[in-house]
């Protein structure tokens, strides 16, 4: 509670200082709009309903990309952990695919899929893939050898061992990867829109930049940050719920 109050006071102090600095007239509103102006713009965007379609587009990209990246990352992690020889063959390629700056793929993806949702969902999925893949692989390989022996002794086959032992014990690590992926999904969606979006919060930032509306840019920042925090907290809640069922210790 104390710390919350302190961080709220800090925010208030920064905003007041910022407002005063802007009102003193030493900085052009074009360069740095006052917080009150940003709030006004934000309210205008919300009340007029102009913001909602963009928010919906960005969230759709984010969710679709996150889902695709999660399914692929989890699947690939499971596959390569079950077949270590495959892992050794594919590892350099997986790594290379992650080292390619994915935004640089944007123009290519737009050529392939055209402008719109698809290239951005693909970029987001590519970004979300890696944390899930790595954490799934790490988590599955960390299962206690003694417990594997127990399952061997109990005659559990591969699938059963995966479902009843490996995945449950890897769950906390996998969920940590998912949390990272969620944050990256928002970044992926917004920045993906910079490159190839027609709609969405990122695309709106580019549009605002082209008319030098810095107040709108800042208002969009606020929306994006709020969205990120909301999604992160939701993920944490989901994680706590799942872990309570599969509590580790």
């Amino acid at each position, binding site marked *: 509670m104390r710390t919350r109050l302190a961080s709220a006071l800090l925010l208030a102090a920064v905003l007041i200082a910022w407002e005063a600095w802007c009102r003193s007239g030493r900085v052009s509103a074009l360069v740095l709009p006052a917080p009150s102006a940003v709030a006004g713009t934000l309210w205008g965007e919300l009340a007029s309903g102009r913001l909602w379609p963009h928010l919906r587009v960005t969230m759709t990209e984010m969710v679709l990309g996150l889902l695709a990246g999660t399914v692929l990352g989890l699947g690939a992690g499971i596959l390569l952990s079950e077949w270590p020889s495959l892992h050794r063959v594919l590892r350099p390629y997986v790594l290379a695919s992650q080292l390619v700056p994915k935004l640089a793929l944007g123009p290519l993806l737009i050529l392939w899929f055209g402008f719109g949702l698809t290239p951005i969902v693909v970029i987001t999925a590519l970004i979300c893939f890696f944390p899930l893949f790595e954490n799934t692989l790490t988590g599955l390989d960390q299962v206690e050898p003694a417990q594997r022996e127990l399952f061997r*002794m109990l005659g559990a086959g591969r699938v*059963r061992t995966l479902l009843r032992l490996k995945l449950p*014990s890897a769950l906390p690590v996998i969920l940590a990867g998912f949390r990272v992926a969620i944050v990256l999904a928002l970044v992926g969606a917004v920045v993906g829109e910079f490159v190839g979006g027609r709609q969405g919060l990122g695309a709106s930032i580019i549009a605002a930049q082209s008319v030098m509306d810095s107040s709108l840019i800042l208002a969009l920042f606020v929306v994006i940050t709020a969205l990120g925090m909301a999604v992160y907290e939701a993920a944490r809640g989901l994680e706590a719920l799942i872990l309570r069922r599969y509590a580790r210790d």
Partner: protein
Amino acid sequence: MPSDAHLILDGVRYRFPGDPLETVAGVDWAIPRGAIHCLLGRSGCGKTTLLKLAAGLIVPDEGRVRIDGKPLRGPAPGVGVVFQAPTLLAWLSALDNVLLPVSLKRRPQAPDRAAARDLLAAMGLGDLAERRPAALSGGQQSRVAMARALVTEPGLLLLDEPFAALDALTREELQDDLLRLCASRGTAALFVTHDIAEAAYLGDRVGVMAAGRLVHDGAVPLPRPRPPGIRYDPAFGAVCRSLRAIMDGAAPAIGRAA
């Protein structure tokens, strides 16, 4: 060696990859149906390795393991194992941990649950069936692991120091429970321990292992059933002393100098 024994180890040798010395260096052993054999030995002499060979978890480099006459090629089905560490699944309740051998095969039914609860009660854990392992003491966890090994009513039990984490009183109670269960079900057991009195109390025979070899294998000259009070009997003391003398005479404890 009786060829109709339940578990037969026949010239079994095993060396861990990269280890210059054999961890199990030629062991012959036979456990008849329903008999309880104890394996004594100092830390690091290869007891756990021998137990895993008997379980089929590792395959001998030389020699053979047979259960019910059939040579073992993989983990032996129908053998209950209690590992040295409890190896409970943290996300399951004590009851579900006990039911694991069943639930890996099929959906547990009401009679399975009842049997598991009875076993937990016999282990003195009747009230803790719904607890997760993290909320159990170390000794309670070992008892859950013991109940898990018993739930399928195996004909052969392999136990690796199952009572090492228990206080003397609980340990003696559980020794009696084990004897009772084995006698009523006709279960054979290979019981690894480094406690001489425990081996003398439980075993029909006691083997002493040192540096990968069985340096002694003899019958325990005590009657069955053994009342708990037998522990204070001079005859019991004599058995313990002779086992102690054999262990003292065996290879050194530290390192595995041949």
